[in-house]
């Protein structure tokens, strides 16, 4: 593997000294909206929209400044303040604006702003819209803090902030029991990943005495194999939690309980991309350990097939998209695990996926809006004419995700599959198979939603969404279509100083078709054809047909992820807790309460002496006095 020279970041000047505003603006928005109360109800959502847009504008300015500066000066450090100083150990907080983080900032604020605009329309009839925008701003703030931090410790603050905001948003309709449960589930599963993060940061502090990117990355070469592998695996555990990778994938499908713009935000711009960011950012650590990198590849490959499988079996439009997100993030993890050859492709796919997945999620929201919030695709059908704009934009997202030539996903996914083949033929084949399955379930979704016959529930009158919702769809469809073309030749060189340079393979030119690419296209075409034959040519039953096929059943049950967690973790956990409680009650408390009971019983007996009869008291006194006298006399005699 090529070792990477860590570039010392430049001191911040000019516009870069304002980089903190990127985070501060949405934070201010969240603060005003959440603390302002009902007074901000009338204009709150517009403030909520304005702050991420302002951040986006600033991000574009910074991006332009980075573009204008020479390649070796594109990492800018913005120190904020000294967080703690204990003995020889000092933690300074600062931001790092470099090639990698600025791309994330652009994605988060750009796609995030469009999702905010869309939400104005989507949540128009919700009485708690202002609070919703407060949470959205909080989400964006936390995610920006996560990607801009120059220290794993500060990154962790954003990391937890994202977890909190996702909890609040998934459970936004908390009056629904399922939403409250889903939010709790997301939070708990994320805690498991966070444990990995905490241990990883502790390990860094113990080994290097610092958790700053600059220190850790510069000295990663000194790590022993064991420590490097441990660190890599712990970071992977954290990444699995946030990015919903196997085995911590179970929260993602339930997270669909949140309002649809939240799903778009979680799946496209924030949250699930955090794990990929973490792995890519920690590339000097993974460069030291073959084992941890392999683990990343395995996790990515398993997840990409896992998600695709689930996507094939679901009838809920949002759950199909959620399965596809898992699958696509799996591709990114796979690419990130390959090493320097794959990092740029992981980020490339992350960006294009951010565009088309946000586009499709918002499109799905638009469809649900039209269908009285129904999510069952078996109740859709023939919506292409009724919802022309949604159909057109969703169609572009669909073509982009299945990797239709010259659309965004075509380039990014192809690169990953090719890199996977060069890494390992088995992994490459599985990744290619995943592309075919993706084509199948996405085509199935399109056919069931937009084509075929009307299977609408009674009383549903679909109508196109208002402009405030369709304009973001159009704006997201554009990069979904041409994003790949624009970024393809540029992103590898741009990211090279951060993630290192992979061995040259088939310089990605515009009209580049390799054997692998051709095969992938064939497989994609086969997937589409299969879906047309199985779904498009037949009448779609309104209720899901009963089946004995273990594959379909497993897919419908999220591959038994919940059942697995329940039998392996939950039930033994409950048993353990019961045993501990019983020990506490019987043994520990038993000792104390037993002693107390004995004393109480003694008091019960002795209180009978106090009976209210004066003469019995007098007798006691006389007897006592006599006793004293006897003792005195006996003492005198002795």
């Amino acid at each position: 593997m090529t070792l990477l020279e860590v570039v010392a970041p430049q001191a911040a000047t000019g516009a870069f000294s304002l980089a903190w505003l990127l985070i501060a603006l949405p934070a201010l928005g969240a603060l005003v909206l959440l603390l302002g109360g009902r007074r901000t109800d009338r204009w709150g959502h517009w403030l909520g929209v304005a702050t991420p847009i302002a951040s986006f504008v600033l991000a574009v300015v910074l991006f332009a400044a980075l573009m204008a500066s020479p390649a070796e000066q594109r990492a800018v450090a913005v120190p904020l303040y000294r967080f703690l100083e204990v003995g020889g150990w000092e933690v300074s907080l600062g931001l790092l604006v470099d090639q990698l983080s600025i791309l994330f900032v652009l994605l988060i604020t750009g796609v995030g702003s469009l999702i905010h605009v869309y939400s104005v329309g989507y949540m128009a009839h919700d009485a708690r819209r202002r609070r919703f925008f407060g949470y959205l701003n909080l989400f964006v703030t936390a995610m920006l803090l996560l990607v801009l931090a120059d220290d794993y410790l500060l990154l962790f603050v954003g990391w937890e902030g994202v977890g909190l905001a996702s909890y609040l948003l998934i459970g936004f309709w908390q009056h629904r029991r399922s939403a409250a449960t889903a939010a709790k589930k997301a939070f708990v599963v994320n805690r498991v990943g966070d444990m990995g993060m905490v241990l990883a940061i502790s390990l860094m502090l113990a080994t290097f005495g610092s958790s700053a990117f600059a220190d850790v990355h510069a000295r990663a070469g000194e790590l022993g194999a064991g420590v490097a592998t441990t660190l890599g695996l712990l970071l992977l555990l954290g990444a699995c939690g946030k990015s919903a990778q196997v085995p911590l994938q179970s929260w993602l499908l339930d997270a669909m309980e949140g309002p649809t713009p939240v799903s778009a935000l979680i799946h496209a711009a924030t949250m699930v991309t955090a794990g990929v960011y973490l792995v890519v950012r920690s590339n000097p650590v993974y460069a030291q350990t073959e084992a941890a990198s392999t683990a990343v590849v395995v996790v990515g490959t398993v997840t990409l097939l896992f998600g695709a499988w689930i996507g094939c079996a679901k009838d809920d439009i949002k759950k199909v998209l959620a399965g596809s997100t898992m699958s696509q993030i799996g591709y990114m993890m796979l690419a990130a695990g390959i090493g320097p050859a794959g990092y740029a492709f992981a980020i490339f796919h992350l960006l294009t996926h951010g565009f088309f997945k946000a586009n499709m999620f918002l499109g799905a929201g638009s469809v649900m809006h039209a269908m009285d919030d129904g999510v069952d695709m078996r109740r859709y059908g023939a919506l292409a004419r009724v919802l022309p704009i949604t159909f057109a934009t969703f169609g572009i997202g669909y073509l982009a995700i299945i990797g239709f030539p010259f659309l965004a996903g075509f380039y990014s996914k192809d690169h990953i599959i090719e890199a996977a083949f060069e890494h390992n033929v088995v992994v490459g084949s599985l990744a290619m198979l995943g592309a075919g399955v993706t084509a199948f379930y996405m085509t199935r979704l399109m056919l069931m939603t937009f084509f075929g016959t009307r299977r609408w529930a009674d009383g549903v009158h679909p109508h196109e969404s208002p402009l405030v919702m369709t304009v973001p769809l159009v704006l997201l469809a554009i990069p979904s279509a041409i994003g790949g073309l624009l970024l393809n030749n540029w992103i590898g060189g741009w990211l090279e100083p951060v993630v290192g340079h992979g061995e040259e393979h088939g310089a990605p030119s515009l009209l580049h078709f390799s054997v692998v690419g051709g095969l992938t296209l064939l497989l994609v075409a086969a997937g589409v054809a299969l879906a047309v034959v199985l779904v498009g040519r037949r009448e779609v039953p309104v209720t899901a047909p009963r089946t004995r096929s273990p594959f379909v059943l497993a897919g419908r049950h999220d591959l038994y992820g919940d059942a697995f967690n329940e039998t392996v973790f939950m039930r033994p956990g409950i048993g353990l807790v019961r045993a501990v409680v019983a020990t506490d009650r019987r043994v520990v408390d038993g000792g104390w309460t037993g002693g107390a009971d004995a004393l109480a019983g003694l008091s019960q007996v002795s209180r009978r002496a106090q009976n209210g009869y004066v003469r019995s008291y007098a007798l006691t006194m006389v007897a006592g006095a006599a006793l004293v006298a006897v003792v005195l006399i006996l003492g005198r005699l002795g």
Partner: protein
Amino acid sequence: MDPNHYLVLSGMLFTIGAIGFLVRRNAIVAFMCVELMLNACNLALVTFSSHWGVLDGQVASFFVMVVAAAEVVVGLAIIVSIYRTRRSASVDDANLLKL
């Protein structure tokens, strides 16, 4: 003068007072028995005082008298008020103050 006679008398008076207090139910009688015990003590104090030729015992007996007088004032008042409310001066009837 043989102090033993006085001491025997004092012991007898004290015993009569103590037994009377234990066996009689009437509050006034019980009260008088208490006074009897106090005065038995006074007698013993004065006897010892004259026997040793010092005034300590007589001073102490004055204190006992003062306390006894104060006690009578308070005690009789209580007995009268209990009698007024309960129409009874029996100490066994006033048995509510208990656990």
